[in-house]
């Protein structure tokens, strides 16, 4: 999918040389069409042997019973060592106690910030807790002209709010994903902090479509903090002038009291149940899971590897802007593993935007989110109840 599809084509000749008799056909599809294409492939009984899957899609395809469990393969493998993977990332591949995927590359959200502007406001180090972050946001905003802001949180992204919520002790859904848990104190605390950033004028009220070019705006100092993912390391290196490369860096996400968690994202490699070449497909998964291959993959794509040994690579270890990701990856948690999650996340985005724009007060937003999540999860409750009765 996407850029990964192109890079894989370059790695395959080596795999085919080591494994004579196995021929790999790669089909590249754009991310935007991938979800629909996979579901129609399943309905038409035309699934591939192996594919790359965004890890939030695993619960959905597992519910379809489309994926082959990998527990036995991993137990017998000398290459795929579960303890070498970041625990939160590995966990995204487990649904109802079974393993359906092997992490391929990882993704999480953390802080990108302007070092020079933060220092000018009197802070040499990035924030580690919400209170420190608050103080910095206020100090930065106090010095900023009216068209500048301390932080950019585009309203069409639910991820920053989800990350704040994952830092809480309360889970996002409760009772094995049967009900929403948005009325919990944890979520209300996360939402209150999120709203505070808009109400105090630290974050502008806008969607990312209104930001014509987020990188030049960042370079011009229109905002100091930005919660984003690993792809922006490459984008910023490519797009900002050399003289400005020292002005920005990354930091782990601050938590309520000290360093906080973030979202376990990324892509995994999965095998389909209907595949008649499972042994060969597993060989390919093992090939892509070797730390040496992951390093080459990282060099070609910029995607961050999911294994700690791959991070020991001198080039990656010396990369100051990637280092924060290494630290954050030890503290990532999966989004709720139910097929309905994307839909609930969409409601989270919609209701959060209403709360930011002031059309719905906080307490009502939390209740409304629970009501919407519970309605979406109705079928899941029915199926779980029927399964329990059988």
């Amino acid at each position: 999918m996407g850029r990964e599809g192109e890079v894989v084509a370059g790695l395959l000749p080596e795999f085919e040389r080591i494994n004579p008799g196995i021929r790999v056909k790669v089909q590249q599809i754009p991310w935007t069409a991938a979800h629909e294409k996979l579901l129609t492939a399943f309905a038409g009984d035309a699934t591939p042997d192996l594919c790359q899957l965004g890890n939030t899609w695993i619960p959905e395809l597992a519910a379809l019973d489309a994926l082959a469990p990998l527990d036995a393969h991993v137990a017998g493998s000398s290459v795929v060592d579960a303890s070498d993977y970041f625990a939160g990332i590995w966990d995204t591949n487990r649904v109802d106690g079974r393993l359906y995927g092997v992490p391929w590359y990882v993704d999480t959200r953390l802080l990108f910030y302007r070092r020079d502007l933060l220092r000018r406001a009197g802070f040499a180090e990035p924030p580690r807790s919400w209170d420190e972050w608050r103080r910095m946001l206020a100090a930065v905003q106090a010095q900023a002209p009216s068209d500048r802001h301390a932080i950019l949180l585009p309203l069409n992204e639910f991820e920053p709010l989800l990350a704040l919520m994952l830092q809480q002790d309360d889970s996002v859904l409760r009772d094995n994903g049967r009900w929403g848990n948005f009325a919990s104190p944890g979520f209300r605390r996360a939402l209150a902090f999120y709203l505070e950033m808009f109400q105090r004028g630290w974050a502008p009220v806008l969607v990312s479509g209104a930001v014509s070019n987020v990188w030049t705006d960042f370079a011009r100092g229109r905002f100091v903090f930005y919660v984003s993912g690993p792809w922006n390391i490459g984008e910023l290196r490519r797009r900002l002038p050399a003289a400005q490369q020292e002005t920005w860096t990354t930091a782990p996400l601050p938590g309520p009291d000290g360093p906080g968690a973030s979202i376990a994202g990324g892509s995994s490699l999965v095998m389909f149940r209907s595949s008649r070449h499972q042994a060969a497909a597993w060989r390919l998964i093992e090939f892509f899971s070797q730390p040496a291959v992951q390093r080459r993959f990282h060099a070609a794509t910029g995607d961050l590897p999911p294994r700690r040994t791959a991070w020991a690579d001198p080039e990656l270890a010396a990369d100051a802007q990637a280092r924060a990701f290494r630290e954050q990856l030890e503290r990532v948690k999966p989004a709720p593993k139910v097929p309905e999650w994307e839909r609930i996340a969409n409601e989270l985005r919609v209701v959060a935007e209403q709360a930011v724009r002031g059309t719905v007060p906080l307490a009502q937003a939390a209740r409304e989110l629970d009501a919407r999540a519970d309605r979406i999860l109705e079928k899941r409750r029915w199926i779980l109840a029927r399964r329990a009765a059988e």
Partner: protein
Amino acid sequence: MRGVAGWWFVAPALVVIGVFFFLPVLAALALSFTDFDIYALADGRNLRLVGLGNYAALLVSPLFWRAFGNTLYFVVVGVPLSVAVSLATALLLHSRLLRLRGVFRTALFAPVVTTLVAVAVIWRYLFNPHHGLLNYALGLLGVPAIDWLGDPNWAMPAIILFAVWKNFGYNMVIFLAGLASIPEALYEAARVDGASAWRQFRHVTLPMLAPIVAMVNVLTIAGYFQLFAEPYVMTQGGPLQSTVSVLYFMYEEGFKWWNLGSASAVAFMLFVFIFGVTALQLRLARWQYAP
């Protein structure tokens, strides 16, 4: 005997229409009485017959009514605007004073045949709050900058502007054909009677065009109720769901969330509504022009 032969001749077309149109429509109708979703795709036992449940759920769904209201807004403002612009440009093109008629006609018709996605990208630039041409022009007139696609109050007007620009050329061509068919003798008689240009328009052009206006209205309203591509490429339904149309809502239900049962119900509700509106229009038109 002759009748039977006739049926044989149309049979291939009827079979194609039956298999590729009526059968899917019937299947969708059946689907709208179930809660078909990805669970049902996995295992047929997860399919529940819900009767009119999908319809009932839609009737109490705030987002459905929001989408319905947005669509109605688009139709009520967009259709008169679109028809008026089409008629005005057709009259200008029909004027005897005009030179280079072919060039203007082609230029004004061009938006209809352009690719929607490509021009949507251009219009996004035009609508950009900081660097857009539209706000620049308004700025020259002293109007403060408008966040066209980011402000919930302005997103739908922006979509309407874009849709009218994209579509008016089609109706313009129909009006041009209508204008060409009005006998010149009527205008000559009116001029002899001393009618001004406005009265000629009011008492000759409009009555003679009336059947065409009625037809254009029916087609445009039915088309505008099916608003989808414009918000899909420009705003994805946002901001604050101010540009979610009924069809966009159906698309999300069906192909984003895979609630095909509920999505089918949306489609049938929209069908019944458009059918009702069109029937009403035809009845009005018949009543108006009854001898």
